[in-house]
């Protein structure tokens, strides 16, 4: 599964970048994220509840950020496993200034395994796209609602 999408924000790149590496904000933006805790510099543990094609389940995941080049880009690695199988993905985020705000390019790829592959493989891409769109929509909302350092 490979996705590539761009999202427009009213905020400058610095604000966006800071929000994207803030676990508190991430938790609010990730659909079904019940808990997110920092386990080290740029790494977190996340507890997620996701449903794909009628396969609802809990996943425990590791999130790691690397190739950080504030405020332009970073790479996000996600690995999760749970009753319905496993998910693994990586997203390369690039932030470019655009007018007064910024534009974010997200190129992600993911794999699933176990039951979710067996049952929902045809739907995983659609679900992934929906989750990603939802994430950035919520992020936009968060940025408008909260005062974020750097704003």
């Amino acid at each position, binding site marked *: 599964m490979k996705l590539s999408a761009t999202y427009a924000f009213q905020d400058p790149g610095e604000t966006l970048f800071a929000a994207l590496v803030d676990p508190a904000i991430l938790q609010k933006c990730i659909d079904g994220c019940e808990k997110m805790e920092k386990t080290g510099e740029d790494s977190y543990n996340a507890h997620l509840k996701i449903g794909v094609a009628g396969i609802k389940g809990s996943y425990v995941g590791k999130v790691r950020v690397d190739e950080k080049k504030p405020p332009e880009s970073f790479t996000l690695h996600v690995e999760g496993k749970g009753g319905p199988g496993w998910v693994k993905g990586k997203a390369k985020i690039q932030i470019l200034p655009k007018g007064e705000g910024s534009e974010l390019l997200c190129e992600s790829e993911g794999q699933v395994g*176990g039951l979710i592959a067996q049952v929902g*493989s045809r739907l995983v891409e659609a679900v992934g796209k929906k989750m990603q769109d939802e994430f950035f929509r919520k992020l936009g909302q968060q940025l408008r609602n909260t005062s974020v350092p750097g704003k």
Partner: protein
Amino acid sequence: MYLTEELAAKGKVARGYVGRAMKRVEDPRLIKGIASYVDDLKIPGMLYAQFVRSPHAHAEIKSILTDGAKVLPGLVGIFTGADLNDKLGTIPCASPISGGRSPQHTVLAGKRVYFVGHPVAVVVAETRAIARDAVDLVDVDYEPLPAVMDPEKALQEDSALTHPELGTNVAFIWKLPAGDVDAAFKEADKVFKLRTVQPRVTPMAIEPRGCVASWHAGESSLTLWTSTQVPHLVRTLLPDLIRIPENKLRIVTPEVGGGFGSKLNLYAEEVVISHLAMRLERPVKWIEGRRENAATTIHGRDQVAESEIAIRNDGTVLAIRSKIIADVGSYCQLLTPAIPTLTGLMLCGCYKLKAVLAEVTGVHTNKMSTDAYRGAGRPEATYMIERIMDLVAGELGMDQVQVRLKNMPQPTEFPFNTATGLTYDSGNYQAALAKAQDLAEWPKLLQERETARKEGRLFGIGLSTYVEICALGPSKIMAAGGWEWGCVRIEISGKVTVITGATPHGQGQETSFAQIAADWLGIPMEDIVVLRGDTATAHFGRDTYGSRATALGGTAIVMSIEKIIEKAKKLAAALLNSKPEEIEFENGKFFVKGKLEETIEWGRLASEAYIAKNLPPGLEPGLEASSFFEPSNCTFPFGTHIVAVDVERDTGHVNILKYVAVDDCGKQVNPLLVEGQVQGGITQSLGTALMERTVYDESGQLLTGEFMDYAIPRAPDIPEYILGSTETPSPSNPLGVKGVGEAGTIGATPAIANAVIDALSPLGIRHLDLPFTPERVWRAMKEKEARS
């Protein structure tokens, strides 16, 4: 005309039960829903087990944490490979090929997992729901490894390895050099090549697997109820694995909702559940789910063959050289290596080839094992040779019927020895072909094709003239014991109990064996009960697979009845003040030769035999006999299937317009059962031809894990079948029967394939791989259009 009408017309009905189309005595209980399957069994104190299965095709197990699951109330235990593997034997392969290399098949994964669905741990709980929840809470940490998925790439030197400790992905190599192949190729006017792909398919029995084990502590014995085709094989193999004596183990097979070869095995789950019942001293049940079934019950087919065919300009097929790569999956299950070798042995089809060179390479991949699936090796062979016949016809501009007739042995040439070393017991291939052509209205069909082509429609006619191998078989060619056992008991009341070791799983032996026994004993069928599926009553047996039950199991019953009649004559002689050699037996009556006015029937004989006050000196009480039947040869049923299709140009959809099958399974005990077997077989094979394919992605994830993604034929996909038969009795058994359980799956796929390719031939399409899904057909058409 249906078989039933045909038989009635021949006047066979009057003879007795055998040969009559009779409804199955099994059906009322199945239709009413009052039959018992394994999952219907409830035992007080019974626990439920669920397996924790690998979500990776190939990975190292770093750790298994069970603490999270252990806190669930109602959880009884969690067992991993470390807890069980050294206490239990490994899963056997009964047909290893010398020089082959396969890993130890432990009941649960050890340090590594080798396919998606590989059992890693088993959870036991008070309820099924708790067990399922607990499975999700077992935390297994895997380190994924490269998965070997493509059997052809797996043979390249730089390929990753399914089982690194073996140092190769080759599970075995089997060679069949038969006849002088080089000489035959030198003689050839033409040599052409063909690559055939037989996709992996999933058997999808409606009832998944499942078992219940109950330990009887007082007797130190175990009863295992299991949904299997082969309770007797399980009883032979399981004792060593769970470390109990054979005579402390009873296997019961209640109703089985389909097997098709997928339950012709000893599976790890049966071993684990048996062990857990002994260890926990409580009954334990495990019922496989549909998704589990798709991933962890054996798959079928999965062969790629590169063949070279030597022919003469007159249409004679001289020889075939074939390199067959069989994807055996991660482990060799019970008969895994035997299946592609049957393909090699049957490669001649019903033709007089001079020589065959078949080389089968079994390849380990990170997938579920392949093993017997309805037809087991013969559908693959038939598909190859029948595609070859059509290509020969195409190559030489010959008619597809003529090229077949040119290569068939004449009826007078039987028993016919094939190039591959088999002896076909009896046959009249031309008669079946002629009859199928009649039923199909062949000249009219050719006319329709001509008209359709003129109008630009894609209309095709395909046929397959198949032969297969059944009634497996003489012990000398089997892995072990190819006989079958049966027992007949005239009860004190005169009612009759027949016990068969050829355990049915849907074939209807309770009906057909009662028909046989009723005719031989001369009594009403209603007086007979056929017992099956319990090793405590059916002491011996080799069960039902390879279309063997009637030919072998039916004969064992006839042999037993003959023994009883022999004994009954002695008793009748004493009662009629005569000598045994003077006693005649006809229609259930014993009498002194010529003195029909005084007869004795089974009822009186039985009471005399058991009350035992008037027995002649030296005669044992009782009227019971059992027999083992060891056949001299397998049987070789055959037939012709003819199919007419049209292909929709816009969608690639294949419509079956006409389906004719003429099958010769020798003598028929119950034509209705024969018809049912043929209909079911064709339908399954139609799935293989048009829609079914088990798909793993390149990382080894199974994508066809349930009926949403795995297509099987539904009612609207199934055309009306026009069925007929010819009757060439088999000399291999006294009943003259051959077997018909797999005929449909063997004859149908190549006939449909040939029809589809014939329909596409005006576009210049010469061959296409199975299955002919609309997408595949549409793409092939577009590709041709783009090139031209």
